[in-house]
């Protein structure tokens, strides 16, 4: 029975949705969840839902890190924060993986403080998934992008390591036999971009261990051309947030224009089902989570807006990552490509 530590106080809908998620996981799977947070509050929430107590343990945390807390000082001064204690459950070996939907900056800072960085690695990478077009039946409808904020500026060597880690994750967890890796750039030409991107492109092309498909431009991100997209943290974070906002912005802009035209109103009514599907497809609150790669331990960061279903998925992904040997696979891949 794998044990997954869950930060019960992290996220915009914590702890209610987190408790719902853990309760559902306890009834559906053999995963043991260690819920970390305000024990009294968690117990009251648990008692009001259907759950299996055999698969849930509570660890009390007297503090929590809010979404608007300054990450570094919050991690430094809130020593008993639920996020920190969640990661300690993994660092101590009590749990095989950790999940949090809390403050992303604090998640990175706390990971660097509590977890062990892989020996071969230069920098850790935060990943995220986003919806993309599917080119053939059976293709994963989600692509992986990294880094989305752990390492703001990167060297070429770091981008190469991100590519190796992303490809390994796609192979081990998403079961993509030969993941196609692309480098996010301003053009397809290998000589475009700055020195870092040009050097990274050259190194990736020379790497036989991964299937590098070259540079990918912004407008191609949602195509099925790449399974893993590599970029530095600053760019990745901007791209991710832009992607998140596109669907809802399109729907909202059309809705705002609709009252002015009866044709638009009629069109909106006909398209209502489609727009809802689009909004649902782009709703990150339903996706679960993606890992923070580069540590000896598995840590899945769920989106801050995650609801119970997404957090439950994140817990399942965390257990799967531990079960399927993600960390040993990452170590092997990094050693091989050194």
């Amino acid at each position, binding site marked *: *029975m794998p044990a997954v530590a869950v930060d019960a106080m992290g996220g915009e809908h914590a702890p209610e949705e987190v408790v719902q998620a853990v309760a559902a996981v306890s009834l559906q799977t053999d995963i043991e969840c260690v819920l970390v947070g305000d024990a009294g509050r968690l*117990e009251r929430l648990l*008692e009001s839902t259907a759950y*299996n*107590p*055999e*698969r*849930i*343990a*509570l660890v009390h945390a007297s503090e929590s890190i809010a979404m608007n807390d300054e990450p570094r000082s919050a991690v430094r001064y809130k020593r008993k924060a639920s996020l920190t204690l969640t990661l300690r459950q993994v660092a101590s070996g009590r749990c095989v993986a950790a999940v949090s939907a809390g403050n992303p900056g604090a998640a990175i800072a706390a990971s660097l403080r509590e977890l062990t960085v892989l020996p071969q690695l230069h920098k850790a990478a935060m990943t995220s998934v986003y919806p993309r077009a599917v080119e053939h039946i059976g293709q994963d409808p989600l692509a992986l992008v990294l880094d989305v904020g752990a390492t703001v500026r990167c060297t070429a060597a770091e981008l190469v390591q991100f590519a190796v880690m992303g490809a390994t994750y796609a192979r081990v967890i998403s079961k993509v036999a030969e993941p196609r890796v692309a480098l996010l750039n301003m053009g397809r030409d290998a000589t475009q971009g700055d020195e870092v991107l040009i050097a990274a492109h050259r190194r990736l092309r020379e790497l036989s261990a991964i299937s590098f498909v070259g540079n990918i431009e912004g407008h191609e991100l949602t195509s099925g051309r790449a399974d893993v997209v590599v970029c530095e943290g600053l760019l990745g974070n901007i791209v991710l947030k832009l992607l998140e906002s596109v669907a809802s912005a399109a729907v909202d802009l059309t809705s705002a224009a609709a009252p002015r035209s009866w044709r638009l109103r009629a069109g909106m009514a006909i398209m209502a089902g489609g727009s809802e599907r689009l909004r649902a497809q782009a709703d990150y609150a339903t996706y679960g989570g993606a890992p923070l790669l580069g540590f000896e331990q598995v840590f899945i960061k769920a989106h801050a807006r995650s609801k119970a279903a997404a957090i439950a998925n994140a817990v399942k992904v965390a257990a799967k990552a531990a079960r399927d040997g993600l960390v040993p696979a990452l170590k092997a891949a990094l050693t091989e490509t050194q």
Partner: protein
Amino acid sequence: MTSNGTPARRRGPAAWFGAGRRAAAPPSERVVFRWDLDKTYLLSEFESLREMMRIPFEKPEDKVAAPGVAALIRGLRESALGRGRAVRVYFLSASPPQIGRAIRRKLELDGIVYDGITFKDQLQRLFRGKFRHLREQVGYKLTELLKARSLEPETAREYLFGDDWESDPLIYSLYADIASGGLAPSDLAELLRGARVDPPLIAEAQQLATALAKREVVTRIFINLERPTPPAQLRAYGPRLVPTFNYFQTAACLFQDDVLSSDGVVRVARALVEDSHYEATQLENSLADIERRGHLTPATAASLRAALAAAGLLAPTPRRLSDRLFGPWHRDRRPKSTSAAMIDYRTLLGVQSAEGVAE
């Protein structure tokens, strides 16, 4: 309303080294354990009509008992006899007597010694043309419990075991409150009408309730959360009713009530590990859950952890410095009182009737 099950109130720290357990019942007192069968003792599958139809044709060896329940019943009898107490184990089922032979054989296979088993005569009801009452539980079980009570000595204390599938929490609570005098027979008719009980059964229940000597006889009601229902949903029945997710939790509470030995709890845990492949973490989490919900004192939980660790079923837990210095005394909390709070049956029945639970 008073209770026989109030916590021990011995004075001084020495009293607390008894691991927060309740005062033992006098050796001469008879202890009665009344069990429901389906979904409480047996893991009967009757979610669909097909599964229901299969039950009468099941062989005794095909019937599956809930994990740990047989070990618990055996342990309860042994603990009582070991303390020189008279003990009775009864089963009350809403299943037809036609499956009685298979059930009796199953109990024999499980090594259960019992003193009585009652089935609902469905055929007789069919012959009388009472189709509507084939599935009626409240009137049937309540009258059977009241009849059975009149056969016990007045001082006999009872523990009732049911599940969250039909109306056991309501039936057992009504019975406990009628027996204690907390619910007047005159109020009973209206409540039973609310539960859509067959009118002749209402009259019979009222008659039996009036004749019964009033005394607090039901110490605890255990509801096996088989569905599983959120425990908070059963809070309306007061602290006397304890919702448990497995029989290890039930055993731990019965140990606290001093009707099961720690060895009995260990045997239930061992049955879960050996027969149902439970892991140590599942036992530990179950114990922590029932403790958090206030049905077990930290001291009782600690002494059970030690017993389970000694038996090799749990990893030994390092004692805290404060525990080593002061023992369990300093962090002992009283268990939830088992005395019945005033239950608002009118509201409960209104809700239950709407959900069709009573029918």
